[in-house]
């Protein structure tokens, strides 16, 4: 049988006959695109694809939402945020609930829009909810620098920024190989992936088109049976070994590593980014002396197990019953890129 070159990856994936393998994608966009293209339907039973903690909305703990609501309702701040966060449940309510009780919540599409909003509303304190990984955080850094350069003093960040490498270490027993997010590695380069390989953690840098995803899976399924840790960059048109030097510079100029809580994974040491002390004037926690908040999740919600790959969304007792995209209980159902949302929207029917 001759297989055309363009179908080779698909052939390798669909005809895989090696040992059982758990592959974890750790990027919400990958999760969503894998469902959208129907890639799961092509996988043989030996291949288990797990959706890990790669959606910034999903890993944001309830305490962070509580802090934002505190700033809005107690301190009268205008909260600027990406739209997804509005419906994430805090301990008692979401920002959407708080909004209908008078909290000022403004949806923005970039961090710089929040700075613009602050500049146009000098009589108000504007707080941007800074979530996201290495891809999103440089924008928050840029926003802080712009606010400083333009003398905008009514702008600050509530940070919950996270970095991926520590999460791979924390999750290394949950998966045999990771699909590294192409856009994160475009900023951070691939040295970290080589280091993970030296620590025994396998993975491939993966792009976002159907073909790129299939190629990455084919490479994983070719390498895995060889039995040794591996790393391949399957997104070389975008990702280089060095990554984006200017992006990394921006990060280290404005932010520094800190311990941070991940929903479901708990506190992972040094896996967060927060503002350096010299930018404390732009740190909402410092500026408004936000008291520590231990957020509580719905105890029945299994988002944490899902993010670790210990359970699949349909195994959660709330899934599809009380927790739906219209009325999400857990963060993985809120974001369109969350694992529960994807399972709910695409998983109801096996074709």
């Amino acid at each position, binding site marked *: 049988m001759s297989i055309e070159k363009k179908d080779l990856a698909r052939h390798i994936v669909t005809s895989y006959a090696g040992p059982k393998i758990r592959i974890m994608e750790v990027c919400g966009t990958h999760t969503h695109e894998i469902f*959208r*293209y*129907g890639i799961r339907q092509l996988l043989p039973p030996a291949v288990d694809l797990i959706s890990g903690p790669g959606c910034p909305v999903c890993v944001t703990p309830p305490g962070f939402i509580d802090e934002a609501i505190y700033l809005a309702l107690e301190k009268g701040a205008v909260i600027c945020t990406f739209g997804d966060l509005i419906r994430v449940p805090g301990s008692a309510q979401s920002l959407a609930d708080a909004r209908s009780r008078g909290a000022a919540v403004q949806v923005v599409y970039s961090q710089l829009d929040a700075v613009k909003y602050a500049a146009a509303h000098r009589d108000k304190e504007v707080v941007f909810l800074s979530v996201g990984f290495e891809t999103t955080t440089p924008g928050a850094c840029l926003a802080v620098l712009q606010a400083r350069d333009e003398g905008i003093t009514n702008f600050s960040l509530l940070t919950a920024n996270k970095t991926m490498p520590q999460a791979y270490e924390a999750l290394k027993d949950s998966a045999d190989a990771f699909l590294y997010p192409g856009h994160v590695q475009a900023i951070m380069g691939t040295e970290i992936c080589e280091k993970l390989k030296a620590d025994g953690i396998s993975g491939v840098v993966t792009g976002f088109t159907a073909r790129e995803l299939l190629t990455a899976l084919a490479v994983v399924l070719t390498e895995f049976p060889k039995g040794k840790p591996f790393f391949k960059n399957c997104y070389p048109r975008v990702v280089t070994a060095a990554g984006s030097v200017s992006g990394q510079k921006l990060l280290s100029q404005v932010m520094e590593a800190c311990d941070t809580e991940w929903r479901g994974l708990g506190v992972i040491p040094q896996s967060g980014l927060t503002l350096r002390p010299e930018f404390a004037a732009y740190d909402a926690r410092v500026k408004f002396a936000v008291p520590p908040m231990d957020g509580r999740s719905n105890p029945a919600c299994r988002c944490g197990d899902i993010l670790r790959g210990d359970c699949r969304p349909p195994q959660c007792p709330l899934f599809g019953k009380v927790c739906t995209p*219209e009325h999400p209980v857990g963060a993985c159902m809120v974001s369109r890129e969350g694992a529960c949302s994807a399972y709910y929207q695409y998983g109801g029917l096996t*074709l």
Partner: protein
Amino acid sequence: MSDVITLAHGAGGKQTAELIDSVFKAHFANPEFTGDDAAILSLGGQDLAFTTDGFIVSPSDFPGGNIGKLSICGTVNDLSCMGAQPLYLACAFVIEEGLPMSDLERYAAAMEKTAAEAGVRIVAGDTKVAGKGQVDRLFITTTGIGRRLPGVRLSGTEAKPGDAVIVTGDIGRHGCTVLLSREQFGIDADVTSDCAPLWGTVKSMLGVTQDIHVIRDATRGGVGTVLYEIAAQSHVGIRLDRAAIPVAPAVSGVCGMLGLEPLYLACEGRLVVFAPQAQADAIVTALRQGPYSGNAAIIGTVTAEHAERVTIRTEIGAETILPPPGGELLPRIC
């Protein structure tokens, strides 16, 4: 159901349907109240189509049209989808204090021009002025009446297994245009709204054959929402072919960047048509001669299996579900 109205209730998807069922249908139920774009009323031996639509688009001017043009197209198209020739319109204006007179003039002129093209007359109206900040510039409501062509029986309940699913042009242009003209994304793309009055388009199809089961205009919720509505109303499945769905390159570029599904982007000049496979090619050929349907295409088929679901054959040939509509789409696009 939440205890307050949210933007999702107006997005044209699942929550809108729930709101209509739980509040409006509960209070207004009567035999003429249906799930179609317009009610069919039998008066004096004639079948009249009757409907109304409100317009609150922001911004009120956008590439390819403005709120005036849109307000005529929306109601004309709802009547047309019932196979009814639009005859008369009434319009109500709620105008914000401070709106420049020249803007109102421009919208009225656009309404006149579009009404003339559609062959309808605007015969009654109402004007209200609200204080500054109580409305955003201008809201328009139009109400229309049309005469259904004899022998035509179009309804969302009539889709049959084996029917071809046709769209009358590339999808998602209106939603994409309005999104970009809000400037918040800083994306510059050459897209204009598909906003158009479609009675001529409907007439051309009915000229080919009266054996058409459903015609519906894809508005707020886009083609995807219409497909789910029809699948539910007719209790059938719909299978789409991703590769066959016409999407302008600029629209698919914007969708890729922002993570949007073009099937859920609003259209204001596109119809979704269900007709027997045997008629489909002739309908598409006729559509391609028309001014607003040059890239009409067959995008899928109706199936007996997977009732009330829309499935899609993806780029890599896998079969998957088109996620059902829901949630907060783009606010105020029509």
